[in-house]
C-alpha cells in the first residue's frame, strides 16, 4: 500500500529544476506527479515516477542528492469536502500530516492525494479502518 517517492535536493540556482527533469526525460522516465517545497535557499523536488529505483540512479549520476521514502496515495472524491473527509480521519487518529499534494486523474472524476504522514504505517492503518481507498503503486502508475 506504500508508494515510493523520490526527493531531490535543489539549490536555488537557475536551471537546476530543468536539469533534474531533463535527466529524467533523457532516461525516458515519465513523471506521474510532483511537488516542490521551497525555502529561501533551497528546494526539495518530490516526484512520483513509475520506476523510482531507476530514476534515483539517473539523478544520482547527474550529481543530485536523492532520497527515496514512502508516501500514501489515496483516492478522493472530486467534490467539496472530499479531502477534508480524509484529513478528518487522520486528525481524529492524532496523526500529523507533514505535507501533501494532489492531482486529478485523467477521467476527471476522482482526485488522487499523495500524503506524507509522520508514521506511514500508522497513517495507512487509520485510513484503511475508516474505509478510505488507498491506491497501490501499480494503480497510481496506471492512472
Amino acid at each position, binding site marked *: 500500500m506504500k508508494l515510493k517517492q523520490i526527493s531531490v535536493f535543489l539549490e536555488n540556482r537557475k536551471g537546476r529544476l530543468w536539469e533534474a527533469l531533463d535527466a529524467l526525460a533523457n532516461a525516458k522516465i515519465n513523471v506521474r506527479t510532483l511537488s516542490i517545497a521551497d*525555502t529561501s535557499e533551497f528546494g526539495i523536488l518530490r516526484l512520483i515516477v513509475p520506476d523510482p529505483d531507476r530514476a534515483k540512479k539517473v539523478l544520482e549520476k547527474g550529481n543530485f542528492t536523492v532520497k527515496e521514502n514512502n508516501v500514501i496515495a489515496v483516492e478522493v472524491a472530486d467534490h467539496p469536502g472530499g479531502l477534508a473527509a480524509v484529513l478528518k480521519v487522520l486528525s481524529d487518529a492524532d496523526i500529523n500530516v*507533514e505535507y501533501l499534494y494532489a492531482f486529478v486523474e485523467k477521467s476527471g472524476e476522482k482526485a488522487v492525494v499523495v500524503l506524507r504522514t509522520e508514521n506511514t504505517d500508522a497513517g495507512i492503518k487509520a485510513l484503511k479502518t475508516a474505509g478510505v481507498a488507498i491506491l497501490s503503486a501499480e494503480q497510481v502508475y496506471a492512472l
Partner: protein
Amino acid sequence: MPDKERKDLQLERLRDTVRKAYKNVPYYKKRFDELKLKPSDIKSLKDISKLPFTTKTDLREGYPFGMFAVPGKDIVEIHTSSGTTGKPVVAGYTRGDIDTWGEVVARCLTMAGTTSRDIIQNGYGYGLFTGGLGVHYGAQKIGAAVVPISAGNTKRQLDIMQDFGTTIITCTPSYALYLAEALEESGVDRNAIKLKAGCFGAEVWTEKMREEIEERFHIMALNIYGVTVIIGPGVAHECDLKNGLHIFDDHFYPEIISPETLEPLPDGERGELVFTTLTRQGMPMLRFRTRDITALRREPCKCGRTVVRMDRITGRSDDMLKIRGVLIFPSQIEKALLEVKGVEPQYQIIVTRPHHLDELEVQVEISKKMFSDEVRHIEEFRKKIEAHIEKSIGLRVKVTLVEPKSLPRSEGKAKRVIDKRQL
C-alpha cells in the same frame, strides 16, 4: 643525541650561519649594522633573539638573488614560491643544500615507513614549487622508486596507483580526499590498491581530514611540513605516533613568537613559527617569519626521537580573519563543522560586510545523511551546524547548504575563504 651535544652543535652551526650571512649577504650586513650587532655577539642559543627577523617582504625587496650568500656559480637550483600575493620569493640551493634537502626529506619518508622497496607516487607539483622535487630528492636518497606524476590528472593517478602498485603517496590532503572520492566513484576494488601510507602537507588540514583519508584509503596519513625559503618540504614530519611533527632541528632552528608583540613565547604556547637555518649555504635565513601558527613541545616522543616537536599548523597569521573584531582562523570553523556528525569536509567560508557589519557565511555541501524529503529536518540539521560553529568560535554564522560537488575542488591548495569585504 643528548641534549647538551645537540645544543653545542646548534650553537656552532648558528654562529657559522650568522657569520656567513653578515659577510656575504648585504641585506643582513645592513640590518646588523642598523642594530649595532656583530656576529660575535651571538654567544649562546638564547642570543638568537637579538637577530633581526626576515619577512617575505624583505625577500621580495631582494628579488631575485639578493639573499644569496654564495657566488652564482655555486648555485645549482632555483625555486620560487607561488607568488599569489605578489612577486614570488626565490630560493637558491648549492649542491650541498640539495644534499641536505634529500637527507631531511628522506627522514620524513622513512617516518612513513618508506624503504628502497617502496613505490612513491609523488603528487606534489614538479616545477618551481618545491614540493615535487623535494620529495623526489628524498625518495632518491632512500632508493625508493619515485613516480614523478605531479599534481592533477586524477584518472591517470588512479590508473598508476593500481597498475604500478603504489605503496606511498605524497600530495596535498585536499587532493588526497579528492582522489579517494574519485576512487570510490570509479568502483575500483580497494584490494587492488596497495597504498600503505601517505605524507600530506603544503596546506592547513585537520585531524578529521586525517581520519577521512585514513578510512577511505585504508592507509596511515602523516603530516609533512615545509617552508620554501627554509628548504622546501622536509622541515618537519610526524612519526607513526602522530603526536606532533618532529622538527629536524639540527638543520632548522625553530622559535615561536607572538605575531603582535614579536616577543618569543615559551614552549607550549601558540604563536607564529620562526626559523633560522643552521646549515643552508646558498641562502641562509635568520629568523624567517613563516606566518604559520603552532606551538613547540620539548617532552621526548615515545618513538625515541629527541628533536623538538611542533603541533599541527592551525592557521596562518596572515589568514587570520578579523570578524566583528574577533580573530578567528578558517581551521577553527572547519574543526567545528566536522564535529557535527554527517557533515562532509567540503565547505567554503564567505565573508561579507553588507551594512558595515561583518557577516560570515559557511557554505556546506549537503550529504546524503543530511538530506530528507522534509524541509523541517534539513532546517534542523542546518541550524545544528550553525549552533555548533557559534558555540565553538563564539561568532554567529549563517550556514547555507549547497549541492554536492558544487564547491570548487582543488588539485593544489584548497581555497576555503572568500573575503568579499571592501575595506
